[in-house]
């Protein structure tokens, strides 16, 4: 792997291809101070090997500190007043009695005639798609109106009851179909929209709003109408997906500590650095005066990417009361006002020739993110298969329901539910096996290999014709595919420190939301320095450290592990330089391995890592690195967000049994074949794939966030009414991971959380069809839906 210097860059050769299938060498231009190319995992000692979760011991002993576990001296407790009605004007709001209630230290009005607060779901234009125009109107039941800080949660709760609000009820609509209709009550007369932030999904600017319907957002290539006309076979289906709640076990929460020298927020967040920016902007503070800390984090799934009005209220209360304030949502609040995956309706048409080649794909969709925007169906229909003629039109439908937000693979999850069933339907019409059709129209070599491996593992050859089994309990096999961008956040940074006693720290504000980010950072640094992962102290989840990426879009690993390795490489080079003189050799002749610095040419010349470190002047060596461009350039880059060339794939196979007498669908087995570039930690990746499958399984069969049309309130806003899958629903899940090398970055590693969620529901739907010969195009596929479908009903 000889390097050729070329000014500030150099040429290097990297392994490229799918390990075990075909690996070749590709040449890339890389920055001159970039770490050397990394060999395939088989030749490495720490990367790609089992490593125990960095904070596993803290989590199994109860020592891990989550936001609600933070206790500060003099800490107050806050509660929120929430709107009881789905649409109502505040004629008057009186907090005097609340302010005088026992134990109350501060009252903050979020929305009201004399509140001066903002009524949007976030105070920040850049991160929220919708802003209310009329400040004194509640636009959904459960919207936060005011907040109280008191000496105990009970005192705060009592004071909340003493706030008098004169509500003037307004007409409302909560159902997407009803909200679309002419004459429906209008949610917003006007919308102020910004693009590029965290709405439920992508939001296009400058679209018309008619009634509650905004759009269409369109894209097209070729001529889809002509393509459909030219097709030998057309499939044309309508699909409906439901609202799904995130159900993080740890509710949203904050401990806000406002002091003269700035604000510290202990926050359950998917982005410490992002939350700092939001807080700084909301309170007009410099970034240097805001600190966000998230030690252990109890799940986000997209719902904790932005901070939300509750957190802003807590910070405002802390400023007012001059004391730390804790505000933790209770489960009901969490279920009614922390977001959800938007419900959608889609019509998808696909035309194909007899040989399987796709002549056109045309997608029409509506989605409702409640009072927010971005309820689209992603880009799987546009990009998963080869097709020259494509068009799509999407409409967002506003309704008096709380704002939806991003949820694990936003857009792609409902999009794939439609697309992957339509492709199966097309295969059947063409008389082709679903895998054979995909082999013809899917350009991805990754998914081709995943189909091959997965089909073999699940025993695809035993798949029978749809509905062919006799008896009341029928088995079925199905599969579906995934496509997700290889997302990267550019400019995020990581620091590695080596102390004179040989101890090592890796530091970044990046948070570990349960994915194991800390573990892979330790592995990458340990690999570079010839240490064990447990020798590396992981310091993350605190904006005192260099700003790391958010954990969203499956981008954290791809964004932060390359700078971690580059920083560690710089430390390694400095350490080798320190050791070289004593060992009588050149720094280039030294390697860091097994806790030693040793000569490559004469292995007898060596010293321990610790001895080498002791030679430094001063107390520590520090190296900082930030995420630059991919070596091969990005496919797309918009500001700090970038998408690598190529995509993340993934194919899942499912075996179900369907009891046609009770309507019960059981997922017996899942084979999940996935790729994420270079796998860094197989056990953690497997865990995340399990999570993706279970979330997809709940979406497919069980979960549904229900809003009552009569009252506008959430019907099942707790864990009694909203069921998520448990151990009995968990099938046997085989995870097959490809090693895919591309030579794109210092680690070549990408995420997996979202790709693993996308194909599960359509794979189950395709398996159900194979079992019973009836296609279910609406979610969830619960017993009632199954029985209705079997009876020939809707």
């Amino acid at each position, binding site marked *: 792997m000889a390097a050729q210097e070329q000014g500030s860059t150099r040429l290097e050769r990297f392994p490229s291809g799918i390990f075990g299938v075909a690996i070749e060498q590709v040449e890339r231009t890389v920055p001159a101070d970039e770490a050397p190319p990394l060999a395939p995992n088989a030749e490495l000692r720490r990367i790609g090997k089992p490593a125990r979760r960095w904070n596993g011991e803290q989590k199994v002993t*109860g020592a891990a500190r989550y936001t609600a576990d933070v206790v500060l001296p003099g800490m107050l407790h806050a509660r929120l007043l929430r709107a009881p009605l789905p649409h109502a004007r505040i004629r008057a709001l009186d907090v005097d009695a609340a302010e005088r209630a026992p134990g109350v230290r501060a009252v903050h009005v979020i929305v009201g005639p004399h509140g001066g607060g903002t009524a949007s779901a976030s105070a920040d234009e850049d991160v929220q798609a919708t802003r209310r125009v009329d400040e004194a109107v509640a636009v959904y039941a459960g919207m936060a109106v005011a907040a109280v800080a008191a000496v105990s949660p009970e005192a705060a709760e009592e004071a909340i009851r003493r706030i008098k609000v004169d509500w003037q009820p307004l007409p409302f609509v909560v159902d997407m179909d009803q909200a679309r209709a002419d004459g429906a009550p209008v949610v917003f007369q006007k919308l102020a929209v910004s693009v590029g932030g965290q709405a439920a999904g992508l939001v296009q600017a400058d679209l018309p709003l008619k009634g509650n319907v905004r759009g269409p957002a369109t894209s097209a290539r070729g001529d889809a109408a002509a393509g459909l006309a030219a097709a030998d076979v057309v499939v044309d289906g309508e699909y409906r997906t439901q609202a799904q709640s995130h*159900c993080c076990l740890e509710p949203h929460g904050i401990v806000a500590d406002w002091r003269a020298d700035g604000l510290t927020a202990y926050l359950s967040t998917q982005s410490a650095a992002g939350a700092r920016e939001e807080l700084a902007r909301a309170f007009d503070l410099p970034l240097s005066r805001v600190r966000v800390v998230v030690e252990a984090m109890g799940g986000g799934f997209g719902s904790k990417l932005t901070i939300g009005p509750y957190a802003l209220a807590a910070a405002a209360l802390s400023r007012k009361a001059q004391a730390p304030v804790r505000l933790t949502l209770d489960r009901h609040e969490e279920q009614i006002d922390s977001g959800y995956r938007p419900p959608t309706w889609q019509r998808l048409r696909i035309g194909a020739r007899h040989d399987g080649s796709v002549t056109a794909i045309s997608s029409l969709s509506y989605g409702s993110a409640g009072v927010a925007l971005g309820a689209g169906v992603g880009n799987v229909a546009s990009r998963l298969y080869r097709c020259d003629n494509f068009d799509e039109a999407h409409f967002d439908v506003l309704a008096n329901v709380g704002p939806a937000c991003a949820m694990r693979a936003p857009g792609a999850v409902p999009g794939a539910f439609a697309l992957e069933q339509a492709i199966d339907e097309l295969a059947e019409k063409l008389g082709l096996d679903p895998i054979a059709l995909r082999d013809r129209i899917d350009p991805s070599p990754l998914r081709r290999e995943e189909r091959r491996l997965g089909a073999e593992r699940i025993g695809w050859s035993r798949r029978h014709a749809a509905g062919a089994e006799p008896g009341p309990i029928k088995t079925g096999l199905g599969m579906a595919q995934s496509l997700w961008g290889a997302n990267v956040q550019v400019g995020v940074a990581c620091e590695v420190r080596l102390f004179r006693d040989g101890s090592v720290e890796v530091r970044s504000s990046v948070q570990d*939301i349960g994915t194991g980010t800390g573990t892979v950072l330790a592995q990458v640094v340990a690999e570079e320095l010839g240490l064990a992962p447990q020798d590396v102290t992981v310091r993350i989840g605190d904006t005192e450290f260099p700003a790391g990426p958010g954990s969203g879009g499956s981008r954290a690993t791809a964004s932060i592990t390359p700078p971690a390795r580059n920083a560690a490489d710089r430390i390694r080079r400095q350490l080798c330089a320190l050791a070289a003189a004593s060992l009588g050799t050149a720094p280039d002749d030294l390697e860091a391995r097994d806790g030693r610095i040793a000569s490559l040419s004469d292995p007898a010349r060596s010293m321990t890592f610790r001895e080498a470190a002791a030679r430094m002047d001063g107390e520590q060596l520090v190296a900082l690195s930030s995420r630059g461009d991919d070596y091969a350039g990005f496919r797309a880059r918009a500001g700090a967000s970038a998408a690598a060339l190529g995509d993340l794939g993934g194919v899942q196979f499912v075996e179900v049994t369907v009891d046609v007498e009770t309507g019960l669908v059981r997922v017996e087995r899942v084979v999940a074949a996935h790729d994420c570039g270079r796998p860094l930690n197989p056990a953690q990746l497997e865990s995340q794939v*399990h999570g993706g499958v279970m979330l997809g399984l709940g979406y497919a069969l069980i979960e549904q966030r229900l809003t009552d049309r009569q009252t506008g309130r959430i019907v099942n806003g*707790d864990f009694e009414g909203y069921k998520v899958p448990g*151990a009995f629903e968990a099938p046997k899940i085989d995870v097959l991971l490809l090693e895919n090398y591309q030579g794109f970055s210092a680690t070549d590693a990408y995420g997996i959380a979202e790709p693993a969620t996308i194909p599960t529901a359509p794979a189950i739907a395709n398996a159900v069809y194979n079992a019973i010969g009836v296609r279910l195009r609406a979610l969830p596929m619960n017993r009632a839906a199954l029985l209705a479908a079997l009876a020939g009903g809707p």
Partner: protein
Amino acid sequence: MAGKKARAHPASGLSRRSFLTGTGAATAVAAAFDAALSSVAQAAANAEESQISGPGAVAVALRVNGILRTASIEPRMTLAEVLRGPLALTGVKVACDQGACSACTVLIDGTPIASCSLLAVDVGDRSITTIEGLASDGKLHPLQEAFIAHDALQCGFCTPGLVMSCVALLERIPHPTEADVKAAISGHLCRCGSYPHVVDAVLAAAQARRG
């Protein structure tokens, strides 16, 4: 509280017992309710003999992780609130506060109990074990080790409760089947979907104990 529930409703003159009988519920169900109600009635009778406490703070002594701990608490406080608050055992997690997710599971005399659904004053002299009480002399419980080894956790918020239920399972059934493990953890919600690895961890820990 229990006493009030057992008494006849003053307005309707209808007790739960007579309501159940009157609706003609299946006799087996009614019998089960009768059995439960008689124990409630017994508890109510006992309560009526004892002093009424609250609403102000009362002193309680709780045996937690082998140590007698005292605290001044309001009688309405759940065990989870007392453990997390005055006793600072924040390894006990509250996720739903209604006994629907089992994150707050602790052992009471070895039996897994949702600590969010039990009043602290009702624990009495029974012995409480929380996640903090499992490791001894700095050595993790074999199940804790197995959870780490099998990566049976992700965000970790449901983990303390899951570990407690699995500890109780292995006490009850030293060599469980996969179905036994799934039954033992069926009340636990894990949104990260760690169930397969949890089952692996528990079976491995049981196997290791078999030697």
